[in-house]
């Protein structure tokens, strides 16, 4: 992967954009305790990172955008940033794997990348609290079901339905993020093109 100065400047700018969203909008969503705030935040971050892929169509660019954003998040004025950092880097890595596996940027690859990244948002507590934190997967599953059932207005006993809906909502947010990134990225390109031609 050989990146030009322009590529690196673009990566820095897209990383900063994701970082700004995490530091401002992210704090607001968490403070308001909005349901699925993590997924919405990942969706916005993924949209920005995937637009970045359109402008730096090289392997590793989304991962680098994620790393820049994670460092910015680490140094933001928030207090506990370990989990979001793990989240940002893993989501960027998963999106990068999907994009690299599916070849040049396409609508389908954007869709797959964002959906895979959003799946991690759902799975992260199982990894961080369940495995790294030593709480056990069953305990985390219990919390997830309880929190999810409350947000969806369902009974936690409907395990399969709650889980399916939670996964479905995350995938839906991912799909919207992927399609929006493709559409908005092309719109940005169209907007910049007259300036580039001039």
């Amino acid at each position, binding site marked *: 992967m050989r*990146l030009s*100065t*322009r590529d*690196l*400047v*673009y*990566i*820095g*700018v897209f*990383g*900063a*954009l994701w*970082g*700004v969203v995490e*530091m*401002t909008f992210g704090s607001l969503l968490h403070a308001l305790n909005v349901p699925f705030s993590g997924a919405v935040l990942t969706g916005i971050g993924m*949209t*920005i990172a995937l*637009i970045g892929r359109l*402008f730096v169509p090289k392997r590793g660019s989304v991962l*680098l955008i994620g*790393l*820049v954003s994670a*460092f*910015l998040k*680490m*140094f*933001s*004025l928030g*207090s*506990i*940033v*370990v989990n979001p950092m793990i989240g940002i880097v893993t989501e960027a890595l998963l999106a990068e794997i999907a994009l690299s596996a599916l070849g040049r940027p396409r609508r389908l690859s954007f869709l797959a990348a964002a959906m895979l990244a959003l799946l991690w948002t759902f799975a992260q507590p199982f990894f961080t609290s369940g495995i*790294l*934190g*030593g*709480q056990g997967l069953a*305990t985390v599953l219990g*919390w997830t079901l309880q929190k999810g059932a409350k947000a969806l207005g369902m009974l936690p006993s409907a395990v399969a339905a709650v889980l399916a809906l939670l996964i479905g909502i995350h995938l839906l947010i991912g799909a919207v993020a992927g399609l*929006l990134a493709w*559409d*908005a*990225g092309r*719109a*940005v390109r169209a*907007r*910049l093109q007259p*300036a580039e031609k001039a």
Partner: protein
Amino acid sequence: MRDGNLGAGSPGPQRLLGTPGYLACLAFSLAASMLARGWGVAMVSGLSLALALAFYPAALRVLAKGRLWLLVAVLVVPASLLGGPPAWALGPLALSQPGLATGLQMGLRALAIVVGVAGFAASVSLSELAGLLERVGLKGLGFALGVAINVLPVIDERATTAFQALQLRGGFRRQRLQALRLLLVTVVANSLRYADDIVSAAEARAFSLERARPLPVTWRARDLALAGALAGATLALALVH
């Protein structure tokens, strides 16, 4: 959001360690808290707090945040209630001894990690981190991080201007989703225009990443000794378990 806000500490004579020293402390807090088992976690947590007290006391401010103690409570309380056969009664609640021990150990582990990360963030500026990344061979990442630090205030300002312009023109009264998409496109396009200015300026100065001098990294004499001692402690923990 300027660099000063993002990384409170900047290189100066008041710092007791150089950037590598702070990096060693962070690596120790992360690695040792993952490796320690049982009540060994209490020792690691105590060492992390002692490091913070000695070298980056600003990190201890994190202990005054309610969110940290909420996190610790989330780790301790469910484990104490559901972590095994009940041993004590606390009013209507039955507490489990092994559950409480596991919960406390998880809480101590979280404390060590949070203090370590907060200490690094409070002591090392982002520019120094970019310099460090450049020196360890991650030139591209260091440069991109440097660009990100510098464009943050510009992006913030331009995003606010775009949002206010859209709002003043009634953009969010109807078709809110369409307005949000428009805001995204405007902010990204404006940021890329600014990025092009940076690229033009770099090219005008014949800038080349390969020939660029890495950003300076501050060293202190005690960095190496401290890094060695912490590496030894981590190794001992790994061998014990």
